[in-house]
């Protein structure tokens, strides 16, 4: 890889100052599972790499606050998958975290990096959308909070402005019985990027939503307007039409080698039905306690 300068800020303010000064010439290093590949392949050639792992505020931590879990930017997939509070309150996020890459990748890859990298196939994007996650952003003007749906913009693009970095992701703990499930389509089980990522969420009032990725420029969150999808009394066979409607935004690329557009669209419906059934099952289990 090309030579670069290496900086190790000790505070978020120092990191922000470096980012503001160097702009696009600087890249942030969190888990490095994307960045190191990009550096080696000369896809990015920064003059400065800013290592975030010496900032105590960003060190791996999952903190329970009033009504939400705060996951620091340095928290890796393994930490998330192993946390009992996340397992209990946000099972779909665990399902996404445990299928990222391999054991080795999950020990390094951060969830904040997963979102900031801006891949349309990011595994954690759909559950973060379904759970209404909020991204905490630090920058020259201070701290701001952005709904993850507004944070994700397009391939490789986020709402981050010059000088800004993500310090944490906050996940509201559902304040009512809630069922959610994540599923994905891959060519093989280990170490593969997803051809479809999908998360479904339902509550007892019948509100249903599905977030899905890898079939367009970004992961989309869609609310069910029919009122049918979240109804446990209606058979899944009778939900085909409203389910199809959920995927109108899907526009899989012809260029992707992982799966053809037709295959992805066909499987989107299958995975959607599957995740919805699992989510409804989890909701029922919560309701009957």
């Amino acid at each position, binding site marked *: 890889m090309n030579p670069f300068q290496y900086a190790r800020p000790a505070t978020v303010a120092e990191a922000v100052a470096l980012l503001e000064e160097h702009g696009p010439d600087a890249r942030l290093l969190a888990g490095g*599972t994307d960045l*190191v590949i990009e*550096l080696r392949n000369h896809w990015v050639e920064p003059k400065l790499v800013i290592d975030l792992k010496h900032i105590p505020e960003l060190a791996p931590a999952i903190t329970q606050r009033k009504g939400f879990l705060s996951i620091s930017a340095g928290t890796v997939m393994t930490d998330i998958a192993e946390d009992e509070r996340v397992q209990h309150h946000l099972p779909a996020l665990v399902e996404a975290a445990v299928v990222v890459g391999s054991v080795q990748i999950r020990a390094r890859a951060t969830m904040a990096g997963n979102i900031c990298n801006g891949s349309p196939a990011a595994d954690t994007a759909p559950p973060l959308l379904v759970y209404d996650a909020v991204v905490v952003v630090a920058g020259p003007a201070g701290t701001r909070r952005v709904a993850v749906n507004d944070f994700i913009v397009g391939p490789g693009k986020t709402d981050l402005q010059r000088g800004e970095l993500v310090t944490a992701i906050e996940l509201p703990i559902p304040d009512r019985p809630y069922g959610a499930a994540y599923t994905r389509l891959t060519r093989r089980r280990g170490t593969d990027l997803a051809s479809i990522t999908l998360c479904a969420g339902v509550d007892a009032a019948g509100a249903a939503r599905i977030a899905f990725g890898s079939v367009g420029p970004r992961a989309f969150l869609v609310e069910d307007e029919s009122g049918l999808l979240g109804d446990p009394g209606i058979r899944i066979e009778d939900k085909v039409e409203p389910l199809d409607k959920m995927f109108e935004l899907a526009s899989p690329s012809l260029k992707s080698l992982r799966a053809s557009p037709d295959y992805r669209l066909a499987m989107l419906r299958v995975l959607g039905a599957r995740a919805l059934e699992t989510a409804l099952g989890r909701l029922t289990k919560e309701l009957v306690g």
Partner: protein
Amino acid sequence: MNETLTIRTTINGRKRTIDVAVNHTLLDVLRDDIDLTGTKECCVVGECGACTVIVDGRPMNSCLMLAVEIDGKEVTTVEGLELDGELSALQAAFLDESAAQCGFCIPGQLMSATALLAENPDPSVEEVQEGLAGNLCRCAGYEQITKAVLAAAKGVPR
């Protein structure tokens, strides 16, 4: 000219202070700077697992880490598995089960399996398969590798 940084680290139980180029990976430094060539370079994109080492108890792809990132951390490579010239139980099981064919992936397989057994001393077949899913074997010797890990877990006498 590459910028360098002095780091303090423990590799296979031995404390070391080394100067590393900031744009070199841990894999580069292990193999080229300190002659620990047991760790293999293969895909260099984190897909094959041949370069797996254990850092602070967790298996990681050394090709995806900058060497400066092991500052203050403990690293175990395949050279660190034997103790006083004796193979670890896992290494012995790999030999007994003929788990190595060409052998190139084996250091990585051993490191992932070592980390797995440290965390889960009695894994199921599925747990072994998941634990080693990030380690590819192009000879496709997965059956023997899985058997060896299970044998080591059960402490099968030699």
